[in-house]
């Protein structure tokens, strides 16, 4: 009996250890995420954020046979911007405001649901959004609207530690999914509409202890401080609320930085206002700045550079180059050398009138419009935070755009009060009739009252070498959908109208569509279980998962 028991214990231990070893998501595994396409281990599929999968079971010939396998219903209304991760058959995703769930990626059945109720003092400009979790080992990490970072046991959904990252009463928040780099968790803070001083910080995954902090708005003695006057830096904004990228060979992480504060009154903060509206390249071990590139100096339009940096290696003028591609909210598409931050080229991709062009260093030649006159692109930008994709097979960069969309900006002196709105004016989207409904941050319902007269959307494939469009799929309503592309040259995306699309990534030919009925705002992901490829996308209040008909 005793012998039997100890044998049983041994077997149990072996089983447990075996399962443990299988589920461990090591940093080495994350670094090679693209080589295990059955999983979706990090936000953008890999550290490059290309959202390119080598899975090719679903191809151009059979994509018409996709059928819905299961859905998860969001229990909390509001724009659902979560990006799922899939690890060995388990999907981890978040729902508003800070719930985390683990579901069977084959059936959609839920294992556990963790709920965190943010402090009622939490303030976010644009909805109770959360864009997903990160995983390292057996631990999930999620940022919260009241600026906590929480570690959860991935198998039980129970909290391991809970770290206060910043002060909720000063309107700091976290909406981005954390980024794991080696043995650290990197996360940034939101709140640039409330006069925060933004930062990116690194935490110890075991303890939640902060290891380093990089302020996106430099203080006295820091390089870049000269781009501010007086005390303006103290409320300088510079939020970080979208995923960064990582190049292990260069040991650099790249993050896009949000708008300066106050948003719309640049004369209240003279200077370039570094590192607002910039990309910063940091040493992930120390948080030290390696280089920066500013897209919109002294921004008066809320042109956050909170896009996801997309990394690729390609020939540039006949030489191999490590580049970063960036379609910016300000309406320009950029290619940068990600080793040095050098500007390689940039072109407007939509109607732009706030700048007449970029100089040889990529600095915009600003042409502010007279008061009351529309500025293009408008407040929501030519594109925004929704993740783009890049296919090394087609050499094309894919993203959603807002065409012919302008806003009238109003500038006012803002007075700082902790935790209160610090916007310095406002922006009004152009309306086709006085006071008529017009496009805004999120679609307000299933009926398009504003029509295409005040802007429309498109899925665009860009040649990074020329900055010119190779193909455009026009959409009637504006589009804020992310992208996902595969080795079978399919591009999956959607739009506000609720259609989920599969395109020929080379030509833009529409191969398949289905009406899911709700806005598609974040990007699809793909994964495989037992040799069957799945594609998941969030539309409105459902996450819908497709596979080929059996």
């Amino acid at each position, binding site marked *: 009996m005793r012998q039997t028991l100890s044998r049983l214990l041994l077997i149990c231990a072996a089983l447990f250890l075996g399962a443990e070893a299988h589920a461990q998501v090591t940093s080495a595994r994350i670094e090679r995420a693209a080589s295990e396409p059955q999983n979706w281990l990090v936000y953008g599929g890999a550290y490059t954020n290309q959202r390119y999968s080598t899975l090719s079971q679903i191809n151009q010939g059979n994509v018409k046979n996709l059928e819905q396998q299961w859905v998860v219903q969001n229990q909390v209304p509001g724009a659902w911007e979560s990006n799922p991760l899939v690890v060995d058959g388990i999907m981890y995703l978040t729902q508003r405001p800070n719930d985390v769930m683990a579901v069977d990626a084959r059936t959609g059945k839920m294992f556990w649901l963790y709920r965190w109720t943010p402090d009622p003092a939490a303030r976010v400009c644009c909805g109770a959004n959360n864009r997903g979790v990160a995983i390292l080992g057996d631990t999930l990490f999620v940022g919260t609207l009241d600026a906590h970072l929480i570690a959860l046991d991935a198998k039980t959904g129970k909290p391991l530690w809970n770290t206060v990252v910043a002060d909720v009463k000063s309107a700091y928040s976290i909406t981005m999914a954390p980024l794991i780099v080696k043995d650290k968790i990197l996360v940034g803070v939101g709140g640039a509409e409330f006069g925060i001083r933004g930062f990116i910080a690194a935490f110890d995954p075991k303890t939640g202890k902060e290891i380093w902090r990089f302020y996106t708005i430099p203080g006295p003695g820091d390089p870049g401080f000269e781009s501010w006057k007086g005390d303006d830096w103290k409320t300088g904004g510079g939020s970080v609320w979208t995923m960064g990228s990582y190049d292990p060979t260069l040991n650099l992480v790249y993050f896009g930085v949000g708008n300066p504060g106050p948003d719309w009154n640049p004369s209240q903060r003279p200077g370039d206002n570094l590192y607002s509206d910039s990309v910063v390249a940091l040493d992930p071990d120390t948080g030290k700045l390696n280089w920066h590139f500013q897209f919109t100096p002294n921004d008066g339009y809320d042109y956050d550079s909170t896009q996801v940096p997309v990394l690729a290696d390609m020939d540039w003028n006949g030489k191999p180059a490590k580049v970063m591609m960036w379609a910016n909210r300000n309406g320009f598409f950029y290619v940068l050398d990600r080793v040095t931050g050098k500007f390689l080229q940039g072109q407007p991709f939509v109607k732009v009138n706030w700048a007449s062009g970029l100089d040889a260093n990529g600095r915009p030649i600003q042409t502010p419009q007279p008061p009351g006159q529309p500025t293009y692109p408008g407040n929501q930008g030519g594109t925004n935070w929704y993740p783009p994709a890049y296919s090394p097979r087609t050499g094309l960069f894919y993203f959603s755009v807002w065409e012919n969309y302008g806003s009238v900006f109003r500038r*006012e002196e803002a007075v700082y009060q902790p935790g209160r709105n610090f*916007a310095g004016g406002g922006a009004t989207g152009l309306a086709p009739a006085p006071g008529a409904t017009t496009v805004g941050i999120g679609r307000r319902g299933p009926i398009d009252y504003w029509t295409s007269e005040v802007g429309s959307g498109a899925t665009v494939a860009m040649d990074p070498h020329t900055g010119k469009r190779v193909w455009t799929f026009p959409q009637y309503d504006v589009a804020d959908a992310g992208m996902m592309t595969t080795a079978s040259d399919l591009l999956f995306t959607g739009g506000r109208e609720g*259609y989920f699309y599969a395109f020929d990534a080379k030509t833009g030919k529409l191969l398949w569509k289905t009406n899911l009925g709700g806005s598609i705002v974040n990007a699809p992901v793909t994964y495989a279980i037992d040799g069957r490829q799945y594609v998941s996308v969030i539309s409105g209040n459902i996450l819908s998962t497709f596979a080929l008909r059996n």
Partner: protein
Amino acid sequence: MLCAGAPALAQDHQYSAEQIQAGYRLYTGQCQLCHGANGDGIASVNLARQQFHTVVTDDDIRKMITTGNTAGMPPFVLKPEELDALVAFVRSGLDQGGVPFRLGDAGRGKAIYDGKGGCAACHRVAGMGSRAAPDLTDVGFIRRPGQMLTSLTEPLKGTMPINRPVTIVTKDGRTIHGRRFNEDTFSVQLIDAQEKMLSIQKSDIRQYDVGMTSAMPSYQGKLDSDEMADLLAYLVSLKGQ
């Protein structure tokens, strides 16, 4: 409490552009954080649509702002003219453009709608009238007073783009005149001249014209300013119940 120094506001409900715009500024600074840019940030309150828990009159709005309530609305210390400005901005339906308007008597306005205005020849209210133009049963809920005034005086400028007249020639040769409900990349939903609801795939359309005209006549000069204020008050009163 009686404020001896307060001006008498009983005469009419006139809201000037200056008041509405000043109200907008105050609103963005002090109210928007909780009530939201669209006035719908507090559950079951919609300032733009005049949906309140307890507020009815303009003075109720002033009182709510100055005293707050136990549900979480804090009291604000504001000057009388600032209160007037916020009232005007709320009553304008949060109209950032600040179109000035005056509301008269809704009962007299209904008589103008049915009689001199001839509105029912094209519009419909609570099941009575034509469907050729938009059904106005809840127009006071979905449109701002300033928008409706613009539609009455300068219809072309005030027409919501979705309501522009459309003409569609299908590939099988049918010509359809109608008014849209909705449109997307692949389809258009409309009501045709025979009041039939149609959902047409764009792939079936040979020619598609959106008219930049308006079938609505202008009432500028046809109604005097008192009649206009009465008609507007009637339209504002149409909340769909």
